[in-house]
């Protein structure tokens, strides 16, 4: 395996297994002695008092190193840095107008999150983040935010920050976007479309992986399968035939119905994603 990137974004359509793959990849990299951290942007609202999300609780339970970023803290930290005063920042993020404005601007929220992520990566050159990213469309909102807000601000300190972010994000060997998909026509089409849209934002290393692959299970060729499973297998083969060139790897289906076991099943095949 070549030396890993600094920042992995795991995205794709809902339900493709982003969380499990992100956790498994984090686990795998750590087992290879890397300082990898599972990352999740916990809330999409400044006023939300929601505690840790399911995913973070789960990472804790599975003893997978993780970082949970929270919008209120990140915003306050950023404003504080810009104003050179944490007191001002504390006041700003509590004003009703700032709150109301932020809640109208999900793109800006993502910008704050990304900014904090990049700052942490800059501070610690050993650190690797694996972001359990929002699903397709919202991942685009997140990555387009650097560009959109650069355009909105045009000049000044905030503009400069967006440019610095773009520069770092798309620097060599820094970012890899892993799009997960499933062996169905709709899911694969969405992944290919997402890859195209991501390339329009900025050239980045982006790969498509097909999760839940039934045909990749050991011994599946020798199985005596009922018609419904044969037709699943058949669909998968057709997909491989048609789109195989665009899918970097197939990740085998786990027979387990327990989240922890699914992640353990996935972990060995995660070298493909790094």
């Amino acid at each position, binding site marked *: 395996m070549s030396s890993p990137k600094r920042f992995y974004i795991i995205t794709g*359509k*809902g*339900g493709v297994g982003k969380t499990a793959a992100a956790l498994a990849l984090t686990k795998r990299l750590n087992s290879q002695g890397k300082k990898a951290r599972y990352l999740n942007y916990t809330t*999409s*609202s400044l006023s939300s008092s929601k505690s840790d999300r*399911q995913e973070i609780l789960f990472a804790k339970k599975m003893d997978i190193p993780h970082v949970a970023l929270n919008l209120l803290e990140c915003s306050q930290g950023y404003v504080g840095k*810009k*104003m050179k005063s944490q007191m*001002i920042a504390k006041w*700003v993020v509590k*004003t*009703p*107008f*700032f*709150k*109301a404005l932020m*809640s*109208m*601007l*999900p*793109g*800006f929220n*993502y910008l704050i999150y990304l900014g904090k992520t990049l700052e942490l990566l800059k501070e610690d050159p050993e650190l690797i983040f694996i972001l359990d990213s*929002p*699903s*397709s*469309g*919202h991942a*685009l*909102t997140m990555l*387009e*935010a650097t560009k*959109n807000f650069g*355009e*909105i601000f045009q*000049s*000044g*300190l*905030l*503009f400069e920050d967006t440019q610095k972010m773009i520069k770092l994000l798309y620097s060599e060997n820094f970012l890899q976007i892993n799009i997960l998909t*499933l062996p169905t*026509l*709709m899911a694969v*089409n*969405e992944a290919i479309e997402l890859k195209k*849209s991501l390339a329009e934002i900025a050239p980045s290393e982006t790969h498509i992986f097909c999760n839940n692959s039934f045909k990749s299970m050991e011994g599946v060729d020798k*199985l*005596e*399968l*009922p*018609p*419904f499973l044969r*037709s*699943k297998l058949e*669909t998968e083969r*057709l997909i491989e035939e048609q789109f195989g060139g665009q899918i970097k790897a197939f990740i085998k289906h786990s*027979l387990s*119905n*327990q*989240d922890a076991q699914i992640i353990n099943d996935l972990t060995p095949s995660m070298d493909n994603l790094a």
Partner: protein
Amino acid sequence: MNLQLKPFEIFSGTGGVGKTTLAASRAVFLAEQGHTVLLITIDPAKRLKEVLNIKDEDAGKIVRVSDPLQDQSSLKLDVELMNPEETIKRVALQNNSDEIVNNRILKVLSRPYGGLNEILSIIELQLNMAKNKYDVNVLDTPPGSHFLDFLESVEKIRAFFDQTFVDIFNYLGKKVESTDAGRGRRFMTKIVSSGVKKLLDYLSKVTGAKFVDEFLEAIYVLYRSKSVFIDALNLQKELQDSKKSNWFLVTSVEQNKIKEAMELSEGAKALLNEETFVILNKCLQDQIKNWNPAPEQTLEMAVKKSYIEREEKHQQILGEKFGNILKFSEVLKMEPLEHVKELKDQWRQYHLEIT
């Protein structure tokens, strides 16, 4: 169970459970029964266009799809893929003013992935509802927590269009001459006490004064369209009224996401009506029942066990929480359209009056 016809039907659920396909099949089913139906997707992934063969450039418009199942039937269905840019144009039309469309900042924000999707969806729905043109409006929503974002948009709109802010930005935006000194002073007090004045000073430090002017202009323009946004709050009442809307929480046997689905229904409780239907999609029970591998076929047995366990677990947990579970069998076909066709027929079982 017998589903009643209501003007709104909303499909929500975690990602990848088949919301879009189910919503499309539902719309086709209702259209076949002779109802006028509008199918809207506010999911930015817009999978509907693939299912029903709609072109990208038609996003944001209501498109009449003739023969949606491509089987030479006379069936017609109206479909709209939500597009924030088009919604902004519609707001401008309502307001008889182009300023909201031409504002530089709002233009960037209302791009398809600018982030305003969920909020503008509410506006789009309200504008459609006001026309009162369809017997049923079927909505396909964004996955998981983004669905909550969509529902919370109502609260966001309410907070943002707070009258105090509107007054302040009207005043700042118009740059009122200080002829009416008394009024000006009153407003200055309001601006200072609301903190907006200080916030703008801070903003100017990090963006420059020119941007602050543009920002003021953008907010001012937005506030001039206040009535359109505030009208949209009425939509919430309609959606909460169980006489007016059917909510479907879609789950799938394929995924271990019961917890997430439950969280979703908890999170949305305050906003939904009490009568939510749960759909368990991609059931394989009938197929599995007829599969009897020999005991020594250990891998086959493991595969069978895995599928049975998965389905039983879903049924049990969902059954405890929700009385009404609508089951849909997995469609084992390649083409999305085939899925719509088969699922459409599966809706029949939940309409007792249809034979």
